[in-house]
């Protein structure tokens, strides 16, 4: 954590603050005011902004597991899918199972259903996390790959819950009688959830479990020796990560309002989440946010480019759109080779440069 030269704390409270300077707090406020005003002033790209919020939640969740705890997961996309289906099921058929007081406190089935969907996903995640005690590195990656394929098959064939190949429609969420039936409304809901989840993840990382995760990633033997229970904390990492992924999934279902299992929650989604945390910077919560934004904005930029070029050379528009996957792969490779510590690291370097400018040394 780099702070300004000459910034002196006089109490622990000041030092423990997430945003330590007025400068940071001011610009954060400006950012949120801007985000809140955006759907009121413009009506294009609001759906994409919702999806970016959801991607942020999912990327931050994967970052807890892979970035902080070092357990590679190729199944995060499927976990998001589990959350999506479980959330919708709890809103529709499973609402009777929820206790009465939840409806009163949370103003309807939506919030409890999303949370229960997250819990179901956490259980599924913990189940697939059990092998992590014995498996490391590539073996765990392959085990989670297996989870991805198995869950995808379940989505396709458990027709009574998921609707199978043809998919199913999802009703608009309702909280205290207020219906989130348009994209701008969903944008505020997803934004609130994303902020909450990023806040939770940040605080998790600087509390006891977060430190334990990092120690497991850095050296599992030393972690065990200093008293970190490997199995318990690995399971915890899987559970927390899957819970957040499940919440992201529930929001996804209610934003898209229509769920088809494949290829929505396929291996491609898992890979793009991994790409987000790598491009953003492994282990850094803020990095996951940058990465999620970057990877979500990339295809939008390619579409814009295709439109722009298509104006002059119409025959080039389709090939440019078709290169999305390749550009994604290329960006990923270039980041891994030239900036393995990701956008978060680059951002720190830029900040340090301007802080010291013009006296770099």
């Amino acid at each position, binding site marked *: 954590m780099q702070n300004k030269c000459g910034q002196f704390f006089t109490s622990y409270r000041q030092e423990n603050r997430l945003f330590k300077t007025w400068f940071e707090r001011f610009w954060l406020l400006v950012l949120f005011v801007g985000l809140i005003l955006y759907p009121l002033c413009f009506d294009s790209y609001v759906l994409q902004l919702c999806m970016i919020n959801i991607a942020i939640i999912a990327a931050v969740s994967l970052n807890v597991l892979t970035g902080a705890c070092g357990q590679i997961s190729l199944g995060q996309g499927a976990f998001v899918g589990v959350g999506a289906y479980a959330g919708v099921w709890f809103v529709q058929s499973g609402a009777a199972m929820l206790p009465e007081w939840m409806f009163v406190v949370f103003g309807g089935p939506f919030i409890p259903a999303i949370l229960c969907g997250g819990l179901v996903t956490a259980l599924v995640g913990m189940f697939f996390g059990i092998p992590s005690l014995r498996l490391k590195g*590539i073996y765990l990656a392959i085990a989670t790959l*297996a989870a991805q394929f198995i869950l995808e098959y379940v989505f396709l064939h458990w027709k009574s819950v998921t609707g199978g190949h043809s998919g199913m429609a999802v009703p608009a969420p309702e909280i205290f009688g207020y219906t989130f039936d348009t994209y701008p409304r969903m944008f505020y809901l997803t934004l609130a959830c994303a902020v909450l989840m990023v806040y939770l993840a940040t605080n998790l990382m600087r509390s006891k479990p977060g430190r334990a995760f990092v120690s497991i990633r850095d050296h599992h033997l030393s972690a065990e020796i200093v008293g970190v229970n490997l199995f318990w904390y690995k399971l915890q990492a899987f559970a927390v990560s899957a819970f957040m992924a499940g919440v992201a999934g529930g929001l996804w279902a209610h934003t898209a309002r229509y769920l088809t299992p494949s290829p929505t929650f396929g291996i491609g989604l898992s890979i793009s989440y991994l790409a987000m945390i790598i491009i953003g910077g492994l282990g850094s919560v803020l990095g996951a946010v940058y990465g999620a934004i970057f990877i979500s904005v990339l295809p939008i930029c390619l579409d814009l480019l295709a439109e722009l070029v298509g104006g002059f050379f119409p025959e080039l528009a389709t090939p440019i759109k*078709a290169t999305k*996957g390749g550009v994604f792969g290329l960006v*990923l490779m270039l980041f891994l080779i030239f900036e*393995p510590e990701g956008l978060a690291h680059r951002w720190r370097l830029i900040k340090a440069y301007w802080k010291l400018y013009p006296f770099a040394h």
Partner: protein
Amino acid sequence: MEHLLEHIIIGLALGSVYSLVALGFVIIYKATKVVNFAQGELVMVGAYICFAFTVQAGLPFVASFLLTLIFSVILALAIERLALRPLIGEPIISVIMVTIGMSAVLKTLVQLFWGTTKKNFPEVLPDVTVKIGGLPLEIEYIAAFILALLLFVIFSLFFKYSRKGVAMRATAFDQLAAASMGIGIKNIFAMSWCIAAIVSCFGGVIVGVIQDINTDLGHVGLLVFPAVILGGLDSLLGAALGGLFIGVLQKVCEGAAHEYLGLGGFGNVASFLFLVVILMIKPYGLFGTEEIERV
């Protein structure tokens, strides 16, 4: 199950493709400890290049096949030099992700050049059917099986007796010691990629001859993981046997699930369920090197 024999034989043919892809995978892992998620895309590129030379350029099959081999060697060298070598010493997730990124790039390139429609290979082998156990079987399947077997024998002998093969095994065993004995580690890495590309290229052409090719062919690189894990990540024999076994398992489970449970497309999931079981009880596979560690 009346079709059991049929499922087993088709499974063996499918398994021989798996064996080839797994062989390429294991060769790379053994020598360089790189887990190559782009193995399937190497297969796909091989198949498409061969298609281009045979159909689009109109060359005879043998000539185009040799040209395809040369092309895949060049491609493998480029991949190793440009993408993998800068990552030596990086954590495993970086290496995995770079191969995943590469697979996306290769797939997009193939789609740009050849589109996403199915392509048909010309008839290479005579249209003969052989009866095995009272079952008519096209000669392509038998050729695939024999070719896989042949390649496996050749590479086993290569690793056991040739100078380069011994050098590769030495590198796999202990890089530092091998380097100090005068083995060029970088050349070994490059060579293992070349061999893997050649083997995958064989796999691609076999798939092309058996059925038609499309851009989802790269998927086979992921489906081959159960085979590799069953055999052990660093064992050639394991890759060959694991590939055959997983091929049979897939076809038999698919047939059984279809007949008794009415589930379609169960084969791939069956092999992944099996993979989870292996990982739980014997994570280093049948013939893999066990890393023993007590905590």
